[in-house]
């Protein structure tokens, strides 16, 4: 039997990560064009939060694969169904790859890593260039995908007015349906 809403732990993870990811995207894109005394603080915060998000996404993938989640509405057109599936695969892929790209690019650039984590890529200038570029572009893509996700969620809540948005509601669910 499929549940009507996501498990409370899955909802907690979703909203916690939503806040952290949005903050990370803005910090990341802001810090590289900033040379004020905020710059080093933002870089430190970016690395620490990135590591936290890597741990959270691993837990989240495990939850997604093991805990039953609600189905999409039965009357959702096939194209939207496909878009929903594809965008979720993209979101999970990007959530996982962003911190790994960050870690790998620090390794390839010969930079120290938070908590003295080991290098996961060889120290190589050209590899660094590729990973650094990939980290940026994956970030832009993640932001675009988050916007699409947000737009779709609001369409479900305000236009279709189905149960999709409520199934991920951050608070307790009063209605059993």
């Amino acid at each position, binding site marked *: 039997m499929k549940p009507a809403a996501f498990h409370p732990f899955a909802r907690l993870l979703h909203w916690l990560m939503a806040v952290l990811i949005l903050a990370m*995207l*803005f910090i990341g*894109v*802001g*810090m*590289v*064009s*900033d*040379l*004020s*005394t*905020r*710059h*080093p603080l933002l*870089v430190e915060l970016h690395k620490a939060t990135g590591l936290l998000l890597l741990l959270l996404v691993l837990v989240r993938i495990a939850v997604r694969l093991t805990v039953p989640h609600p189905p999409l*509405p039965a*009357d959702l057109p096939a194209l939207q169904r496909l878009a929903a599936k594809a965008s979720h695969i993209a979101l999970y892929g990007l959530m996982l790859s962003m911190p790994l790209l960050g870690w790998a690019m620090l390794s390839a*650039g*010969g*930079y*120290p890593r938070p908590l*003295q984590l080991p290098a996961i890529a060889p*120290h*190589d*200038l*050209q590899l*660094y*260039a*590729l990973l*650094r*570029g990939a980290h940026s572009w994956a970030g832009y893509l993640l*932001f675009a995908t988050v*916007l699409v996700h*947000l*737009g779709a969620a*609001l*369409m479900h809540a*305000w*236009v*279709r*007015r*189905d*149960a999709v948005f409520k199934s991920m509601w951050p608070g307790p669910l009063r209605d059993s*349906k």
Partner: protein
Amino acid sequence: MNTPVHGPAKLWRLTAIAAGLLAAGCAFAYTAGWIGGPKLSPQRIIDTFEAQAGHHPGYRKNHAKGLCVTGYFESSGLAAPLSSARVFEQARVPVIGRFAIGGANPATPDTGVPVRSMALQFATDDGQLWRTGMNNPPVLAIGTPEAFYQQVLAMTPDPATGKADPARMQAFFAEHPESAAFRQWAASYKPSDSFASTQYHSINAFRLIDRQGKEQPVRWQVEPQTPYSALPAQVSDTLFLQHDLAQRLSQGPLRWTLRLVLAEPGDPLEDPSKPWPAQRRSIDAGTLVINAVDAPEQGACRDLNFDPLILPTGIQATADPILAARSAAYSESFNRRSRESLNTGVRP
């Protein structure tokens, strides 16, 4: 259950959603600096270097001309009570270094500019890194990134002479009285004939943190043990300093003393244009030994960003705005030259 909205209500709601997404997109673009007024950014500083000195793919965007060296640091142990950093107690710490001259043009003759620099990476056996980039002047002419940018603009080469316009420099110095200490240094500067007999300074202040968490603000300097000898008046070799260093290293290692200069209460910690009184107490932290040229420009130093904020436990940054700006701009330089290496191959 499903009661979808239709008609004007649907249109309004769709408009509201689109407006919300657009606003989020604009906020992101503004944060990234893609829209909004021009502001001083690392990108703008590096763009200005390149506008003045030309685009030199693969090279560092400032202090472009230099050479890689290797060696080690022998700690005296005397700084260990002031800082928990492993570098101050480990007997012998491997060092990767780089000597360079100031400026963004890698074709500048070695003796064509007064500024010389030494960058070092200490890699201690606890897995930590300390990188520092030091210059021969003990102070900068300015104390903020904005004033630095004004200085760079004032130094724009005159197309007719290829040199900075002296009148423009005078005007800059007049507007920036904080440059007094730097001007005094520049006026009395007598270049030595070698990187080996040059003294290098940390420029910015840092904080040593001891095992109890107590702080001691410091600046450091690397003092040559090679005796001073003046640079000849006429030098024709554009690689004079590089050739000299290689020649000296072929005879044997070169040594410097790493001296930590201890601040006293009231000394400026966040303004690299302000010198500290000469009688400040200092500590001989150990001896830097450089023993080999590691292939000019192609050695291990090439792929390192000597970001002065790469610090081990036991050394922390101050809130000096120049320190933050250096870190941001070095990172931009490193990113650009790494990207350029994809097209040109890895060579500066």
